[in-house]
């Protein structure tokens, strides 16, 4: 049986970022990737590195997201140097458009709450009125009344990111094992054994980063990860010259020129089919924001499943029963890649999660339901 310092289960963005960070920290690591039967949120996401709407009422999450966005430039630069892959990270700030005055007032109130909750850490934002916005984004729809802006937001190419993390992991000496669904797991503190893809491997530490698969895996390790799928649909247009100098919550233009439209949320179980009614709503809202989008052809569309904890916040834990077993669960594998590679992985390598991650423990969810 091959033995490692750490096994990471899950070859998506969360697992790959952690595995990359572990290998970089000198850990002998194995990364188990399930294969094309997996739901692969990492291959269907929108590509935002997004801060402004994360963590209202949960300042620890706002801070973690900000820290991750702050780690992003260094991670992108390092991946380019080490792997030759440009992950296309840009951080021009981001906008959230409001289509009527009530929406704008609600948004403003939320941004102000988040500034208050951020304390000394600070939270810069601005509310832009229509005329300021029109200067930034010509061709704005007549119903747009304003937007919120923060300097922290950006976007990247998520497929290039995934590719670069895999390549970087292998170049740092990590072992990537594809087509390996976990079929058996045994846990003792510091001695974890996994049967996957026909072979057995062992490690002193294990990180569960299997997305929706974590829900079933976690209990084997004395952990809890009650994540559920939340479907999102995305539309992609033909390529166009630069129209959007900065990303918006539900609309962004990639470096290559395609415009992505998205952000639907459907509780539809494990169903990944597309529904025309949802696609119509996405297109209609996008055209309200930018009427010129009407002329563009949609060339691709897909649905994917977000990995959603019950309260929407990430779950990070080390098992109390089996120390050495960790979980990482979130719906923001792109945004949090910086934190996972540069902050979370070193904690796993050291064998202890930082106390700052304490509020992310699944123990917060152990509240008896009200009758």
């Amino acid at each position, binding site marked *: 049986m091959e033995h490692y310092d750490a096994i990471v289960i899950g070859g998506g963005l969360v697992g790959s970022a952690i595995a990359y960070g572990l290998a970089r920290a000198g850990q002998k690591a194995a990364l188990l990737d399930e294969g094309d039967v997996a739901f692969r949120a990492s291959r269907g996401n929108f590509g935002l590195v997004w801060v402004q709407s994360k963590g209202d009422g949960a300042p620890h999450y706002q801070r973690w997201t900000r820290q991750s966005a702050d780690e992003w430039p260094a991670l992108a630069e390092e991946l380019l140097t080490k792997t030759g892959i440009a992950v296309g990270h840009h951080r021009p700030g981001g906008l959230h458009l409001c289509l009527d005055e009530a929406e704008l007032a609600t948004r403003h109130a939320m941004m102000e709450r988040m500034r208050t909750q951020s304390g000394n850490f600070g939270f810069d934002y601005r509310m832009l009125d229509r005329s300021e916005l*029109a200067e930034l984004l*010509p*061709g*704005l*729809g*007549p119903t*747009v009344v304003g937007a919120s802006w923060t300097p922290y937001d950006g976007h990247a190419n998520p497929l290039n990111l995934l590719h670069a993390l895999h390549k970087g992991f292998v170049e740092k000496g990590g072992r990537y094992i594809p087509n390996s669904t976990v079929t058996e797991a045994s846990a003792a503190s510091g001695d974890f054994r996994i049967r996957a893809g026909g072979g057995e491997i062992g490690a002193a530490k294990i990180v569960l980063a299997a997305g929706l698969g974590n829900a079933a895996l976690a209990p084997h390790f004395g952990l809890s990860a009650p994540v559920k799928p939340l479907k999102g649909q995305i539309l992609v247009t*033909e*390529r*166009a*010259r630069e*129209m959007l100098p900065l990303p918006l919550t539900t609309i962004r233009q990639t470096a*290559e*020129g395609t415009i992505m439209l998205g952000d639907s949320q459907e509780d539809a179980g494990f169903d990944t089919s597309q529904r025309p009614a949802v696609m119509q709503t996405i297109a209609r809202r996008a055209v309200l924001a*930018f*009427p*010129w989008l009407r*002329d*563009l*052809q949609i*060339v691709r569309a897909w649905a994917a499943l977000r990995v959603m904890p019950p309260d929407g916040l990430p779950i990070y834990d080390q098992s109390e029963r089996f120390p050495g077993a960790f979980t990482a669960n979130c719906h923001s594998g792109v945004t949090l890649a910086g934190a996972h590679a540069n902050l979370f992985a070193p904690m796993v390598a050291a064998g202890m999660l930082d106390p700052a991650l304490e509020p992310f423990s699944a123990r917060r969810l152990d509240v008896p339901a009200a009758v």
Partner: protein
Amino acid sequence: MFRPRSETRRPTVSVTVEGRPIAVPVGASAAAAVLAAGFDSIRETAGGSERMPYCMMGVCFDCLAEIDDVPNRQSCMVEVRDGMRICRQIGARRIHRAAG
């Protein structure tokens, strides 16, 4: 490089490719017209590489052309009609945005 099969005796329509007139069989695709006209590319990618029709079945997007002033058409999926103007697609398309 390409020529029509000798047994085809279909009636033709007249189109232009980059302004050059050419007669192509009724029912042919605009991409076929590009090939029949002898062009070795019909678009330039955003990065400046030349492309010509390749898959001829709507998958590869290498045959993008501006057809009758509509940019980024997949020319292999567009049937020719008399008088059609097929032009090079250079880089990503432009968008005309009306004042908001």
